[in-house]
């Protein structure tokens, strides 16, 4: 038996063609375009004359489709035409793909992947919707009197703008995104070609400054100005004009100055070197004092002292704080024991703190309770009580024992003696405790300042040989960097009658 002729193998069901991968949206568009014009392409590649009659006819119909010329024909002819198109299976030719343009970062949209482009279109549609809503919000608000837009609506709009910023891939500015600032048109920096807006990391500062310029131009003093200036100060506390504008806004709004002081405390603690802040503080105090009771003034003295103590924990020699403290002493009459104790605490921590020494001199010798009014720091004041002079001399002496080579108490002692009209010689034996340079003694100098002091004592007493020896040692051994100064003093001894530092 002849084997049955085997059947030709059954055609396997054709595997579905894997979806074609496109590297970019523009390549997809290009492909769709090409596949919508098979006969036109055929004619182009093979040449019209080599086409078969059927192909030629399909080509002609494609052309009619592409040029839309069929629309001008009478309707029976159109019908016939469409029947042919269907029969020949001619696709409708697509228009040539247009350039998709660029995104906000300047990238060609055509280079997006198909997926990315779909996302992009979706985002754009969302954005358009949000922007329409936002415009509607602004329109509504313009028609409604101030303050009558509900908080909820404003909150919604804020979120809407956040979303717009997010979808744009570029965060909206803090003020641009806040409906409460819609009525302000920021004034950009006018400083030559400085294209500030393009500088990414100064955006926040530049935007805030733009709004500040605008509110200043409009002389606006409102609560939102306080928020704005606080923001700018947090970025740049050295901006003098911002502080001034903030102060004038506070005063015109009659805002709570004690609250402001508390806020300024924080800023000062974070910005040790800043000095604009201290002038601001003085303005606040000047305005505050006339409005509060004597008890409140007393507690202000305490809280201010507490704050300055905090400042001094970071830098006990901060010149701005000390200047402010003297202003405050006059303003609040702080010539009292608490102030003196507070200074002593600082000196206990650092006996070399010249600022604290200087302040002590000020507190002790300017106290209006006994000091001659207007007596200069360099002048003798007959009104200073003897007991007080003694106290200060003992205070200075104790500090020199603690740190003999510390010039502050030595200068202080000279200052006290001068105020009390006493001679340097009154402290000769005290200074002598730090210095052994006599004949036959083993030389021992524990403080060049003591040696300097003694040289002046001896010159004062006319003991020139001893003075000359001391000055020689200072210039030649203990303070060589100032040799010329010591030599000059030695020369003065020879001329006689030279007094320095008394």
């Amino acid at each position, binding site marked *: 038996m002849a084997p049955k002729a085997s059947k030709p193998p059954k055609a396997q069901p054709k595997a579905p063609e894997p979806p074609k991968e496109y590297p970019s949206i523009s390549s997809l568009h290009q492909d769709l375009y090409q596949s919508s014009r098979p006969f036109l392409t055929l004619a182009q590649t093979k040449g019209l004359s080599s086409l078969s009659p059927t192909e030629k006819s399909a080509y002609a119909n494609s052309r009619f489709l592409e040029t839309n010329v069929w629309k001008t024909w009478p309707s029976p002819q159109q019908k016939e035409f469409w029947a042919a198109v269907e029969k020949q299976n001619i696709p409708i030719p697509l228009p040539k793909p247009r350039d998709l343009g660029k995104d906000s970062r300047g990238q060609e949209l055509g280079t997006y992947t198909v997926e990315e482009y779909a996302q992009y279109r979706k985002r754009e549609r969302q954005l358009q919707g949000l922007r329409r809503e936002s415009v509607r919000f602004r329109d509504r608000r313009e028609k409604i009197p101030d303050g009558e837009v509900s908080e909820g609506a404003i909150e919604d709009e804020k979120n809407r703008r956040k979303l717009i910023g997010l979808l744009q891939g570029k965060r909206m500015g803090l003020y641009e995104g806040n409906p409460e600032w819609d009525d302000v048109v920021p004034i950009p920096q*006018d*400083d030559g070609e*400085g294209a*500030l807006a393009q*500088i990414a*990391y*100064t955006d926040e*500062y*530049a935007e805030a400054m733009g709004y500040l*310029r605008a509110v200043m131009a409009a002389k606006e003093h409102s609560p939102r100005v306080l928020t704005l200036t606080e923001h700018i100060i947090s*970025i*740049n506390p*050295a*901006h*003098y*004009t911002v502080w*001034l504008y903030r*102060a004038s806004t506070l005063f015109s709004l009659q805002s709570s100055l004690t609250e402001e002081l508390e806020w300024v405390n924080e800023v000062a603690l974070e910005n040790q070197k800043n000095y604009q802040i201290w*002038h601001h503080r*003085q*303005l606040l105090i000047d305005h505050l004092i006339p409005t509060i009771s004597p008890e409140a003034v007393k507690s202000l003295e305490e809280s201010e002292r507490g704050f300055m103590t905090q400042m001094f924990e970071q830098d006990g*020699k901060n*010149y701005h704080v*000390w*200047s402010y403290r*003297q*202003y405050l002493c006059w303003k609040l009459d702080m010539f009292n024991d608490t102030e003196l104790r507070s200074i002593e605490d600082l000196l206990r921590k650092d006996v*070399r*703190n*010249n*600022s604290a020494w*200087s*302040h002590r*001199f*000020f507190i002790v010798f*300017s106290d209006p309770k006994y000091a001659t009014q*207007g007596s*200069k*720091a*360099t002048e003798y004041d007959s009104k200073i009580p003897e007991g007080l002079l003694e106290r200060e001399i003992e205070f200075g002496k104790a500090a020199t024992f603690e740190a003999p080579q*510390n*010039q*502050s108490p030595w*200068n*202080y002692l*000279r*200052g*006290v003696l*001068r*105020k009390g009209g006493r001679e340097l010689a009154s402290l000769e034996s005290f200074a002598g405790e730090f210095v052994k340079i006599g004949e036959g003694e083993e030389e021992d100098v524990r403080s060049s300042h003591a040696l300097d002091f003694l040289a002046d004592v001896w010159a004062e007493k006319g003991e020139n040989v001893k003075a000359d020896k001391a000055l020689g040692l200072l210039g030649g051994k203990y303070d060589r*960097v*100032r*040799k*010329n*100064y010591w030599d*000059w003093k030695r020369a003065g001894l020879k001329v006689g009658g030279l007094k*320095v*530092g008394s």
Partner: protein
Amino acid sequence: MSLVSGPGRAGTSSALPEELQLAIEPHVKYIQSLDTRKDELEYWLTEHLRLNGLYWGLTALHLLGRPDALPREETIDFVLSCQTEDGGFGAAPGHDAHLLYTVSAVQILATVDALHVLKERGKGGGRLAVGKYIAALQNRETGTFAGDEWGEEDTRFLYDALNALSLLHLLDLVDVNKAVDYIISCANFDGGYGVSPGAESHSGQIFTCLAALSIAGRLDVVNGDKLGRWLSERQVEAGGLNGRPEKLEDVCYSWWVASSLSMIGRLHWIDGGRLTEFILKCQDPKEGGLADRPGDMVDVFHTVFGIAGLSLLGFPGVEEVDPVYCMPKKVVERVLGAK
């Protein structure tokens, strides 16, 4: 002029040569480059010092013998753009006027020999408008000056006022005697001067007080020996000078202290050789600029005061500086007439 610090660091570029030189060319380039750094946040955050910065940069260039290193017309235009309606000057266009910037404006115009532009293009009728702005800031009771209409007082402002007014030949607008009395009241028990009566002695404030007294022709009220003693004590082991006792040395005090000593004729009381060495160690010889101390970032403030300090010390190749005005001596003589 930008106040942005760096990029250079003092005294770190490789090994310093045995014999320290002043790196003039790098310093000039450094100052010229400052205005091109607008893409740095610090450039914008220091806007409130812009006019001071221009004065510092310009003065440094003049002292380095390169007066033409900044474009003159642009310099003048910028200064004028900072003037406000009241005749004073702000730190930058749109800023409020303040004495600190008004004096810089006058100094810059004087340095580039352009005070006459105030008449041609200034606000409110020329130099008199500037003079009146300054004069209105004097406290007629005490004699001192506020920095602006807000009333903060400081011996710095007093000096700024006398400095600018004298360059404008308008000292008559203010009570100079009262101003002198005020300075006298700021003298401290240690011989120095502070920001106000009773305030701690500070080398910077001493400079302003002495310079103001010099302009007033009243250095006779100073106890020069006592003050010179305190000032000379500012030199520390490293050779540099500090501003107050027990503080670190800093190049800018090479100016405040040395110019003060110079004004009272006692500059020789400190060791000039060691101070020179200290200043030179504070420069970045490659990238240019000076810092407060070796190892720190350079900036234009320390650059000008370091160079001015070298000038006081007679360093070769540096133009002579006027200790009262911190401007080239030639310029001061041209404006005021040789003394």
